[in-house]
């Protein structure tokens, strides 16, 4: 187990280092001068040069790369080129929007999908099953940003129940803040829920056919008890796998949903920073995102061990089968 953990951590570190190199090189060759973008068409060359020097852009690339990576390791991040505040200060309020949004969407998706998936499996072939599966097929096919547009049309403009976009900030109170996140959460969650419901159903169906389920039933457990005690835990493995894989989709989804609902989140910050050639913000955020995805995949691997007793005993077990 320890060996497995160490190897995974090593791999993650290598991935992150490669990601940092990739993103730095891409940003180096990106056309566009941040100084020109800030000062505009009326600026003189001497003014531009002065600004570039104050941004440290006149130093050689390798020096800036080493500075950056060194800063990342020691926790010293540079200031945003456009906003001139530390990247972390810029990021914190954005995370306070994107984080809850992604978590709420994931929670809602699981809360809808797992019960519905189990229900559909338990009622396999009946009307309930057909209805749940039909809805989930539809859910998978709906682009989340389009769903967002529809929700705005109905609930913000039509019924006027909820704001059409924007975020009042948590300091405005949990009520208004949650109200602002309600429609984006639903728009993000429903397509996710559709995928998870399908995975849950097929996983439960597989489990229902396993020998140990019959053993459990033979020991006198009711169908529901057997499913609950033995089935669900095993059925959760593929569900967790898919959740892990979907996480990067969820991150991407936040980018586009934040645009639809004009939420000041991490996704829009990245898109905006690329547009403004705020190289400092872009490179830090990209590495942060890559790290997040890496850590989540790592956690998914760990959760196998927790969920599957066979894997727990056999260490890294199935990974290299």
């Amino acid at each position, binding site marked *: 187990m320890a060996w497995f953990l160490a190897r995974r951590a090593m791999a993650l570190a290598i991935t*992150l280092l490669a990601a940092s190199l990739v993103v730095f090189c891409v940003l180096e060759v*990106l056309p*566009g001068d941040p100084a020109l973008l800030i000062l505009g068409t009326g600026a003189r060359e001497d003014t531009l040069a002065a600004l570039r020097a104050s941004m440290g852009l006149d130093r050689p690339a390798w020096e800036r790369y080493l500075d950056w990576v060194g800063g990342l390791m020691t926790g010293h991040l540079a200031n945003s080129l456009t906003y001139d505040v530390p990247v972390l200060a810029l990021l914190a309020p954005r995370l306070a929007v994107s984080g809850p949004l992604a978590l709420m969407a994931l929670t809602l998706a699981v809360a809808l999908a797992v019960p519905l998936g189990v229900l559909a499996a338990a009622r396999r072939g009946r009307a309930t099953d057909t209805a749940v599966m039909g809805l989930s097929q539809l859910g998978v096919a709906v682009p989340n940003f389009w769903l967002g547009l529809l929700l*705005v049309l109905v609930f913000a403009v039509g019924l006027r129940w909820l704001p059409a976009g924007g975020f009042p900030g948590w300091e405005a109170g949990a009520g208004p803040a949650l109200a602002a996140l309600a429609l984006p959460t639903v728009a993000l969650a429903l397509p996710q829920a559709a995928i998870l419901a399908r995975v849950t159903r097929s996983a439960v169906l597989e489990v229902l056919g396993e020998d140990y389920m019959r053993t459990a039933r033979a020991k006198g457990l009711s169908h529901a008890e057997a499913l609950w005690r033995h089935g669900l835990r095993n059925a959760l493995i593929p569900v967790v796998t898919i959740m892990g894989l979907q996480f*990067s989709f969820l991150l991407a989804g936040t980018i586009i949903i934040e645009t639809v609902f004009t939420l000041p989140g991490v996704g829009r910050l990245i898109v905006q920073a690329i547009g403004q050639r705020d190289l400092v913000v872009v490179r830090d955020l990209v590495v942060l995102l890559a790290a997040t995805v890496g850590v989540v995949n790592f956690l998914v691997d760990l959760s196998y061990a927790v969920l599957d007793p066979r894997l727990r005993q056999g260490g890294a077990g199935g990974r290299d089968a």
Partner: protein
Amino acid sequence: MREPPERRDRRRGLGPAGWFGAAVALAVLATAALSLVWTPHDPSVMAVAEKLRGPSATHPLGTDHFGRDTLSQLMAGARVSIAVSLIAVGLGAGLGVPLGLLAAARRGWVDEAVMRFNDLAFAFPVLLTAVLITALLGPGAVNAILAIALFNIPVFARVTRGAALGIWTRPFIQAARLAGRGRVRISLDHVLPNIGGTLIVQGTIQVALAILAEAGLSYLGLGSQPPDISWGRMLNESQTFLFLAPRLALLPGLAIVVTVLGLNLLGDALRDRLDPRLGRPREDA
């Protein structure tokens, strides 16, 4: 493993949902092909005086903000959406499948390198890759293809590797090994044909995902650009008319939903028929 009985039944045909999916996929392909030679109106000809008209005899689905015929645009849009998705998935499979085969055949450090590359590629969400590529090369359908293809490489590499590893444990492969066949030959002659079903199923799903991705990118203004028409592009252009002509936002969205739905139904039916094992969790997937 005991199979649920209904699945065994379905393996004989596609089933009604599968046939529906196949019909939708075919219809979309046919429409896209038809739009090459015929559309009710030229989809790119503007008639500003005719802008934002509701449905009528001449324009069954109305006109957009430049007075272009919406039905013709939907037909032509199918072409770009499908082309972008197919090419992107094809590129992704073309690079990902060999990588996966190689990783499964060689194991060891090659396998490790391929998997690390996968982690790296997976670490960048497709939208982020697209935004960076767009900033680098400017927006356009080609860059949308690149971004979606990049995202598809690791998907195919993983699926191929996983399925191929399963085949490598089979007795007939051992036999081929003993007969002195090389790893590359075995991969091509024995492994690839045996995982073809899995790949086709994955391909169908990936095309559906690619259509969604293309729509998302074009909606953000990063994908197809005028004068190209795609469903995502139509959504992008329609968003400011959401209140004036919601029809313009609803129709391309519906086209996307129906197409993706059809492809997914087809993919599921194919999976039931070709690859009953795909539903099973694979630890290395």
